């Protein structure tokens, strides 16, 4: 069963000027669904193409089932690859596309046909066997692309932004369909996406990439609850970042002095030292809002700056006395909405916040997606 391991993988382009993948190591276990996420240009697709053998690494090793495959051509790696554009062969109908894999490997015609039929039925596409790619909807093309990869006998499925070209509703439906399929067929899957919501919904583990490096690997819950990097805290979910200094520490708690002499307490799991410059991260959904300026525990007073109704939740921008702005999201049905200009008190539990050392290159630079 396929296990994938990459060790110290590096890939550069433009005579070494662009480092697309920078000394990356990653293990994907058998039957595991792993998502590679990160902003555009972070190297996630390059990493996937290296694993597939579509490009060759400059350095590093790639193992599939403990076999070093660096020099194995893609056709012999036992993979299925679903491309972002689907890459359905335009001169072949659905049937020929799906049975291409078995036939190109000279499998017995009857077996190839049986495989094709079985896969198409599983993907609810058998009725459209004689349709050409240009006659299919985006969702159907995506399913044909998955069916084609499965019919080729792949046990390792590599998916490169497979839902990127679909509209939101279909994307949401298909992501669960793909996960169910991978789990039912006991496949191993590596799924590249820039949509952290999609990654959280489908994967067993997520690897967050930035500038060619993997910053953190963990389950969606781990990454959300315990981000180890400022960038991860911002990219997986959403966070408010406030600049300040550690005024004092006591056990697992740190007293933080924010700009404008505002005092809050935060969890000090990473043992920050007194007087250290830090960035405090608090998720919008971890903040509670009360009407009026109140002296509540671990709270900051402010005024509502903007209100955005987003359906399930409402998003409030709160302007603090030091002119910093924080975002607070509240369930839309839970309470009466706040008005713009209204005085409010925002508070949070210290254990639901994270302290990071203040980045040398500045906060904005560290959080930049490009």
């Amino acid at each position, binding site marked *: 069963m396929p296990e994938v391991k990459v060790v110290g993988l590096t890939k550069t382009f433009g005579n070494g000027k662009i480092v697309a993948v920078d000394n990356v190591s990653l293990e994907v276990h058998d039957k595991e669904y792993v998502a590679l996420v990160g902003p555009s240009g972070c190297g996630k697709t390059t990493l996937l193409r290296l694993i*597939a*053998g*579509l490009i060759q690494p400059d350095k590093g090793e790639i193992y599939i089932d403990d076999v070093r495959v660096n020099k194995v*051509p*893609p*056709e012999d*790696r036992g*993979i*299925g*690859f679903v*491309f972002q*554009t689907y*890459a359905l*062969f*335009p*001169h*072949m109908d659905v049937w*020929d596309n799906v049975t*291409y*894999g078995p*036939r*190109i*490997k*000279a499998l017995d*015609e009857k077996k190839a046909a049986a495989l094709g039929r079985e896969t198409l039925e599983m993907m609810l596409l058998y009725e459209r066997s004689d349709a050409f790619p240009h006659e299919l909807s985006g969702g159907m093309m995506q399913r044909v692309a998955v069916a*084609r*990869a499965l019919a*080729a006998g792949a046990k390792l499925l*590599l998916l490169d932004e497979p839902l990127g070209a679909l509209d939101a509703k279909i994307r949401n439906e298909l992501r669960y369909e793909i996960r169910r399929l991978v789990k039912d067929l006991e496949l191993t899957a590596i799924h590249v996406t820039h949509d952290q919501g999609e990654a959280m919904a489908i994967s067993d583990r997520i690897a967050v990439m930035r500038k060619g490096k993997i910053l953190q690997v963990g389950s969606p819950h781990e990454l959300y609850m315990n981000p180890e990097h400022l960038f991860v805290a911002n990219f997986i979910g959403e966070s408010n970042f406030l600049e300040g200094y550690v005024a004092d520490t006591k056990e697992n708690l740190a007293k933080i002095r924010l700009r404008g002499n505002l005092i809050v307490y935060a969890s000090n799991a990473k043992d920050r030292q007194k007087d250290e410059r830090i960035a405090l991260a608090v998720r919008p959904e971890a903040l509670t809002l009360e009407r009026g300026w109140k002296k509540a525990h671990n709270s900051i007073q402010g005024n509502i700056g903007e209100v955005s109704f987003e359906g399930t939740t409402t998003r409030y921008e709160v302007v603090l006395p030091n002119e910093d702005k924080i975002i607070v999201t509240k369930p839309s049905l839970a309470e009466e909405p706040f008005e713009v200009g209204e005085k409010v008190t925002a508070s949070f539990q210290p254990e639901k916040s994270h302290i990071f050392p203040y980045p040398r290159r500045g906060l904005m630079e560290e959080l930049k997606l490009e």
Partner: protein
Amino acid sequence: MRKRAKILKFFDEISSKPILRYSVYFSAILFFLAIILVPPILGTALKWDLMTEVFNNPELMSRALNAIGFSFGIALFVSIIDLAAGIPTAWLIARGKSRWLNVLDTLCDLPFIIPTVALGYSLLLFWNSTYGISGIFGNSLVSPGWLLVILLHFVFSFPIVVRVMVGALLDYQYVYEEAARTLGASPVAAERTVTFPILKPSLIGAFVLAFARSISETGATIVVAGTFENGAIFIANMNTPESQAQFGQGPLVFASLMLILIAVVIFAIIQLLGTKMKIPIKRMSPTFERKLSGRKVVSLRDSATLFTLFVLILIPALFVSASAFPALLDGTLNSALASEGVWQEFWQSLVLSYFIGFVATLINVVMGLPMAILIARKRLGKTVSAFFDVLVNIPIIVPSVALGVSLGLFWRNLPFIPELWLIIFAHISITYPYFVKSLTAAITRVDVEIENAARILGARPFAVFRTIIMPLVKYSFFAGAIIMFTRSVSETGATVAVAAELQTVPVLLVGWIKPLLNSDVVGMSFAVGLGCGFLILFSIIILLVLRLMIRGRGRY
């Protein structure tokens, strides 16, 4: 500057008036029908009764049919070897990683810019004379005849196939091949089952262009053919005053009409079968194809490709320069520069050739541009556009010598048209499709939404064209113009057919070379070498100037 702005504003303003816009389109259609499409068809069709002269002379009939048969046979054979050699070359250029491939890419264009008569003489010197490769063997290696005709046609049609296929491979979405590889196909299997079927229209297009070019070529073929006679040479032979006196115009009309009809039928069959023909993906042999994909086989293929390119194409094509260099030292150059003796005629012909090339190009640019927009943007509806899109191909597929005969017969009914304009009309007919096809494809590639955005921002139709479309299609515009110009300057067959007194430079050079062909092994003439050298030199200079002009006008 203010005056220029005023003029542009005036044209911008009037371009908004539908009546004016449609007048431009209808003028373009009228020009196409009256000058390009109808005369070549009506010219021979109106004189069809003259063909009885051939029907009553079985010997002449058999000679004509044999010649026509050879034309199509050679064109078919040459087009097949063009594809066989051109595809690996294009593959190497488009897919290779070496920087030297840019040089190779440019070298492949060389036979295209060398006027075909010079090319013919060059091949003759290389393969037949003791100055060339035959010198090694002490005797003529390849005598003038069908084999040399095949080698010649291969040389000048090869760049067409390479150009078309390099373009197609660069436009091709490589992801399809990658998808096939991830599904278990070896590189050769992926190319056979996915890449080539997707590139089928380009393969057919390259085949058709090479085939048409081979059928049309006359001047250089006469130079290398010896006693061998194909359709074009038959027509040229029948167009002499002696033959006219002996056989009349019947053989001309017969051969031209047959060439035109058979060419049209063959191209119709290729189009019909081409779209239906499928490259089978069944019955695969994975092991064999895997072996073919191996590094050794690929290296062997690349080596064979380079060998073919240099030994069969580039060295023979450029060999004429060997006879141009001695001419620089033995006084021939001085005579040429002083315009002494035959050189006076040469310079007059050269000026005439470039003048005709310039006028034909200018007229086609002005009249072809609205036609290209009309077809690309479907200005008169889908059906009309598709109809003209097919019709503009006809001058390409009709052999130029037959076209020339037909045009000559048609325009001579109107005796007030001077001979110079007859030649210009012939060149307009032959070169028109190269410009319109190139520009139509380029305009089609420009997203119509870009045009709409400019209109919404306040640009009038003419302003949209000059500020948006033209900068985006400039490369294809000039490329089309360059092809028209070079094609016109090297045109021989149709010129011979329509001209009585005037001589363009390829026609003159054919006249110079003919006496050299009398012996078994052709002699080297420094004058011919120098004449060909001048022709090549001036063509290259003009092309370089045009390329610099294009580059100087921005990044597109």
